């Protein structure tokens, strides 16, 4: 662990010399490295992709797959989820689009 820390510090000093960075650049590299470390750590701890024992495969997707067609009449299960079961969420998405357009028009038409 101490060796790794030493290598990281040496690499930062080497990059500082090579790229002629200011102290602020060193701080940026440290921060980005820290964020990257935690992201990699999180991804490494995630359950494997597509495993049937994953915690996301609980009773809710089972309900969607078993009675989705009978509940909504839609063969496309994605449509039945986003427009029937989670339609309120889709209204939020449409609102995001609307606000984006309003912001673009307000910014670009003013000058």
């Amino acid at each position, binding site marked *: 662990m101490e060796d790794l820390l030493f290598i990281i510090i040496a690499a930062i000093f080497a990059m500082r010399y090579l790229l002629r960075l200011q102290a602020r650049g060193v701080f940026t590299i440290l921060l980005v490295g820290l964020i990257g470390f935690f992201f990699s750590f999180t991804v490494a701890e995630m359950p494997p992709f597509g495993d049937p024992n994953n915690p996301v495969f609980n009773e809710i997707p089972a309900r969607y797959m078993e009675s989705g067609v009978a509940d*909504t*009449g*839609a063969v*496309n299960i994605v*449509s039945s989820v986003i427009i*029937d079961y989670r339609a309120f969420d889709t*209204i939020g998405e*449409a609102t995001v689009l609307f606000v984006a357009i309003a912001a673009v028009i307000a910014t670009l038409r003013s000058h």
Partner: protein
Amino acid sequence: MGTLENQIVRITSRLVAPFIQVYGIYVIIHGHLSPGGGFSGGAIFGASLVLVALSFNLEVGAKQISHDTASILESGGALGFVITGLVAIALGANFLANQSAGFPMGQTGQLFSAGAIFIITFFLGIKVASTIVTLFYNIIEGEDKSGDAH
């Protein structure tokens, strides 16, 4: 030489655009049957209008769908979505309810089925298509104006 390239691009895009538009409408209205739906179909339809505006010029593109029409379609799509949800309340169910509100469900697998899903997908497609077109025209016009000023 530039005119020749322009000619190729213009004729090709003029030939291809109707097929892209038909495909976009197909993806929108088959949203409850096949992969796709309002968002992807609307993006396809809007991309065809952007293609025409790119290969010709802004005036020809604006002739296809004007600023006011795009704005009305934009707001109308969102409004239609919300009104479909309110109709469900008026029919005595929850906001955005489908089967429990008594929308006609039809035969599963047919084109006109799935009640509110069909209607909402249609409105979403209109909204996404006009969003893409409005975004594109506003950004391009802003570029033009700043280019003239310099």
